[in-house]
């Protein structure tokens, strides 16, 4: 028998600290596989966020930086400007990127920084205990929205990919999900393109990954996948919003 699936060299041996069924692990794996498949693991420098994936620096088997909350795109900018030949990426959650780091991601895209962002949207603050995020759906309960997100007070959830797709410097923008094996394979393809976008010097690239948070959503991992499909997918449609190769 031939091995058809084995753990990638792009990940360290460290066990993920994530809760059972948390899809961060899937997104870590496909990102690491892409780095390995593109042969850039030795040139990769990643930037971890603050949030559940704060310890991502322990899991990716490449040089890593831990940024202040939301500042990963600024840190990545500093790295890429100093080492333009290296492959620089940020891995950020929705509290980190869409709230406190909104300015940093918008302007990294706006400058067309040749970096790649993996943006994990699970519609909640996970690490701090299930508080409302800019991406929390209307009516969705959170520990700081105990009656559900009230649109009249908190607005509608921020559609980060659509917003960034209005920026010319954002060369590659795609929203994917990791709810099924088929979608995971699509997500990996998008992440690969997002790194190729950087390798070809085309500009800023971001992949928004719809993800689950069984613990803070208060569901089993299997129910959380269904909730993502039924509630997040209609509001956050999947698909490519910017593709530098189609433009040419």
């Amino acid at each position, binding site marked *: 028998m031939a091995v058809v699936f084995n753990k990638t060299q792009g990940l360290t041996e460290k066990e993920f600290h994530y809760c059972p069924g948390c899809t961060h692990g899937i997104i870590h794996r496909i990102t690491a596989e892409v780095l390995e498949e593109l042969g850039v693991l030795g040139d990769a420098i990643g930037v971890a966020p603050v949030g559940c994936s704060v310890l991502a*620096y*322990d899991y990716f088997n490449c040089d890593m930086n831990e*940024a202040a909350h939301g*500042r990963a795109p600024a840190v990545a*900018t*500093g*790295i890429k400007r100093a080492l333009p030949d290296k*492959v620089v990426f940020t891995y950020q959650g929705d509290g980190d990127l869409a709230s406190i780091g909104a300015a940093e991601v918008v*302007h990294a895209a706006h400058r067309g920084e040749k970096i790649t962002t993996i943006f994990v949207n699970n519609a909640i603050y996970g690490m701090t205990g299930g508080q409302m995020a800019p991406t929390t759906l209307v009516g969705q309960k959170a520990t700081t929205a105990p009656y559900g997100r009230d649109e009249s007070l908190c607005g509608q959830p921020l559609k980060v990919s659509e917003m960034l797709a209005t920026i010319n410097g954002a060369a590659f923008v795609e929203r994917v999900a990791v709810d099924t094996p088929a979608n995971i394979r699509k997500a990996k393809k998008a992440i690969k393109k997002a790194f190729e976008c950087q390798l070809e010097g085309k500009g800023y690239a971001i992949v928004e990954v719809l993800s689950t948070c069984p613990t803070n959503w208060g569901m089993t991992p299997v129910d959380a996948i269904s909730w993502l499909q039924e509630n997040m997918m209609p509001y956050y449609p999947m698909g490519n919003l910017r593709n530098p190769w189609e433009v040419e």
Partner: protein
Amino acid sequence: MAKVLMKGNEAVGAAAIKAGCKYFFGYPITPQNEVPEYMSKELPKIGGSFVQAESEVAAINMVYGAAGAGVRVMTSSSSPGIALKQEGISYIAGAELPCVIVNMMRGGPGLGSIQSSQSDYFQATRGGGNGDYRTLVYAPANVQELVDYTMKAFDMADYYRNPVLVLGDGMIGQMMEPIEFKETEKMDLPEKDWATTGTKGARKPNIVNSLRLQAPELEALNQKIEAKYMEMEEKEVIYESYKLEDAEIVFVAYGTVSRITKNAIDLLEQEGIKAGLIRPITLWPFPNKAFAEIPATAKALMSVEMSQGGQMIDDVKIANEGRLPIGFYGRSGGMVPAPQAIVEAAKELLGGVK
């Protein structure tokens, strides 16, 4: 090397480039705009990179990234902008990264004014950010010193793996003075084998990080950093003592105000009053040992600052150890002390000292 006439803010940039800095991340704020302007013009010529960031917060985090990548990097700002940079400065200290930060102080609090001030002494020496950290702080008094200490700051930052602050003010940033770029001795600096430059598959990943979730690990990091601060306190203190011999009153002043205070000392001399000066050049570590040089003739100390009520005076009190009465003269909001006003304040203090 021949002397050239340069504006302080541009001289900072030239000194940084001379020291091997090719990367600058900044954000416009008066009265330091000539620093980023100069860097935006010069860095592309030497294969470096200048980024006008979206904010001071972003700029200092770009510095964090570039410093982590192992290059010499600088940012500059003025008081409210430095306040915004405190987040990043704390992280840079925690991750043990080297960088140089220039503050051309302006009046505060809040938006304050765009005129000169020294009201960020606490911010500079106590650290405006969170946690147990310090930054080495140089306070040049003229443009030549601004050049010299900016260059030295890069060596010190690399040696200690810690942010180094060059603390000037609007006056020193805006004034033009003749300067020369002296050839300095090359410091023996450790290799940056901790930098994140890509593993090339040849080593274990490097991680630039200030997070230590386990309490004993964070305490160990703090102990390691503290040991560096103790070494700085022992080795890096710089100060000038001026006319201390037989002085009846000893002023303590730094930066541009020390020059005005020297004028006041000359005026007092003409009136037959002997006055001297201790000028801290490193504000942190503060030159406590300079106070041992104060002669027995001294009846009082006076801290002179561009600050309302004084900030450095707290360190003067610590260094004085209760020995002499301490007076204060200060102006704020962009008002600059006049020599004659310092003279009057000194005479009043001496008149009241038994």
